[in-house]
């Protein structure tokens, strides 16, 4: 049995059933681990030790009476700091929301509370979920548990690092262009972005509403399946929320499309992909090449759409309607501009300005409208491909985790999302799976599976064929 802080939900439940330990014991162990490691890893922004212990004791009392609420009852988890949590500050890793304490819970937080799960605290992220390295957090960067000189990825870097470093059993993240799958890949954990709309986003602070999805970070695909079965439900408080209508698991030989294209993966990531391909082929799958319209054009379309929507969504953070404000400005206009100029980070400012630029009357047709049209092209192409394939196999990220400070321009950083933006542009479910480690560096390698809308069960089924938890080298993590 693995170190208990790295166990799955099912393993914890079995141990607690056997009275090996209680939820309170487990929660205290995670809190100790957070205390020991957070200074180095920077995964947490806020720890709610008192609330967590109180929830754990309540769970133990229910267990003693045989009244467990769900399979997650008593399991400690953490949430990215863009989920509203009643009474616990929610900063989006921004100075502008440093003191914001929501008066209500996001739907997913409420569902987990009702299921008896134990919230340990709130996790670091790129400010307002804009970034791929966690370096744009206004507080401190999250570092990679495999090698602290490397980034954890982003924007849900705190979520991935917390699970990877044994600082939570599972974590919630958000995925607008790869923000769950990319850090999951860098930190050697499983990351799921479900079909657009199947998990409610009520209470999730918006980045780009047409692509934002609540995502899950776990040790195994089975844990993701378990969580999704609880969280996927129609919520009338989220206008885009839908019910999950699971696609059937394919019968007969699995048909796999292998995404091909120049520059999609480093030699090490390509080698992981080849191993996955061989493994599926050995199990009887038919693996055929698959190509998509220009990856760079997809990245550009994503960048334009995301920035446009973000520039609108973030207009409310002006020091009057939401957020902290500076106290030295004369007149209301200066109050707005000084507050946003001083309290928003560089990447956030860049994307707001860029989003506003591409929405201007003189540029809209050249950027925003073309991006929308290209998005539809991608969606049509991907949906058509699922007549031929059950899943698409691809790299999650072009490279393994890069060094802190290594990437210096915004457009270089955007390339980290090269293989993940398709699923967001098309609203498809996709999962990143750890798939061994790179020779020499010991950094995690990964693969990504993408399915048709509502194809999460297909993803979990194929993942179970590929998953090998022992391939992630637990012992090398800090």
């Amino acid at each position, binding site marked *: 049995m693995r170190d208990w802080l790295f166990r799955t939900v099912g393993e914890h439940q079995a141990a607690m059933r056997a009275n090996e330990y209680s939820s309170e014991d487990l929660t205290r162990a995670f809190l100790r681990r957070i205390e020991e490691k957070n200074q180095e890893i920077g995964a947490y922004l806020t720890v709610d030790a008192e609330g967590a212990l109180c929830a754990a004791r309540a769970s133990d009392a229910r267990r003693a009476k045989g009244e467990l609420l769900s399979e997650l009852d008593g399991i400690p988890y953490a949430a990215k700091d863009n989920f509203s949590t*009643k*009474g616990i500050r929610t900063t989006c890793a921004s100075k502008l929301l440093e*003191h*914001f*304490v929501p*008066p209500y819970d996001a739907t997913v937080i409420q569902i987990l509370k009702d299921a008896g799960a134990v919230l340990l605290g709130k996790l670091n992220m790129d400010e307002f979920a804009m970034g791929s390295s966690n370096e744009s957090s206004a507080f401190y960067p999250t570092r990679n548990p495999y090698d602290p000189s490397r980034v954890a990825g982003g924007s849900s870097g705190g979520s991935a690092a917390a699970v990877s470093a044994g600082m939570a059993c599972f974590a919630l993240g958000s995925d607008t262009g790869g923000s769950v799958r990319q850090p999951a890949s860098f930190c050697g954990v499983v990351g799921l972005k479900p*079909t*657009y*709309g199947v998990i409610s986003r009520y209470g999730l602070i918006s980045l780009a509403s*047409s692509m934002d999805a609540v995502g899950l970070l776990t040790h195994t695909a089975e844990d993701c399946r378990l969580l999704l079965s609880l969280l996927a439900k*129609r919520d*009338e*408080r989220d*206008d*885009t*929320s*839908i*019910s999950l209508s699971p696609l059937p698991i394919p019968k007969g030989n699995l048909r796999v499309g292998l995404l091909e294209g120049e520059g999609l993966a480093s030699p090490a990531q390509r080698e992981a992909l080849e191993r996955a391909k061989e493994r599926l082929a050995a199990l009887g799958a038919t693996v055929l090449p698959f190509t998509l319209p220009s990856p*760079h*054009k997809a990245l*550009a379309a994503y960048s*334009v759409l995301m920035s446009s929507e973000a*520039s609108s969504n973030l*207009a409310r953070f002006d*020091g009057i309607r939401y957020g*902290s*404000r500076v106290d030295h400005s004369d007149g*209301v*206009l200066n109050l*707005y*501009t000084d507050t*946003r*100029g*001083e309290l928003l980070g560089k990447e956030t*400012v*860049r994307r*707001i*300005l*860029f989003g*506003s*630029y*591409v929405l*201007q009357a003189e540029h809209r047709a*050249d*950027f925003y*409208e*073309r*991006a*929308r049209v*290209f*998005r*539809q*092209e991608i*969606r049509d192409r991907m949906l058509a491909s699922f007549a031929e394939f059950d899943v698409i196999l691809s790299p999650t990220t072009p490279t393994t985790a890069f060094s802190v400070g290594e990437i210096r*321009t*915004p*457009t270089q950083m*955007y390339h980290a999302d090269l293989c993940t933006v398709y699923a967001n542009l098309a*609203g498809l479910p996709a999962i990143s799976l750890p798939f061994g480690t790179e020779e020499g560096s010991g950094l995690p390698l990964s693969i990504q599976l993408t399915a048709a*809308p509502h194809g999460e069960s297909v993803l979990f089924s194929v993942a179970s064929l590929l998953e090998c938890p022992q391939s992630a080298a637990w012992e090398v993590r800090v």
Partner: protein
Amino acid sequence: MGMATLSEQELLSLAARCRIHIKEENRARLLWELEGMIAFSSVLQTEESEACDSYAFSHEPKNYGELRADEIGESLERDALLALAPMTEDCYLCVPRTLED
């Protein structure tokens, strides 16, 4: 494709519209980065496309835009909401002047 150009005046006008003050010492770097982002996205202009438009789709359009029942729900807690106010006086919430003389 050549580098897109954006003047400092255009940057400041854009920033004013976004209600963001850009400090003088940050302008040159920001201008350069924004020009890079514009050039990066100019790849979208390389060819025409006949595809139709989509926006904020869902996979079950029948659900999209469905209205909630018009019923009174649970209210948020007054004290928790007021605690978020940056300025209060007695039991009042203070807002900066938003209308100028």
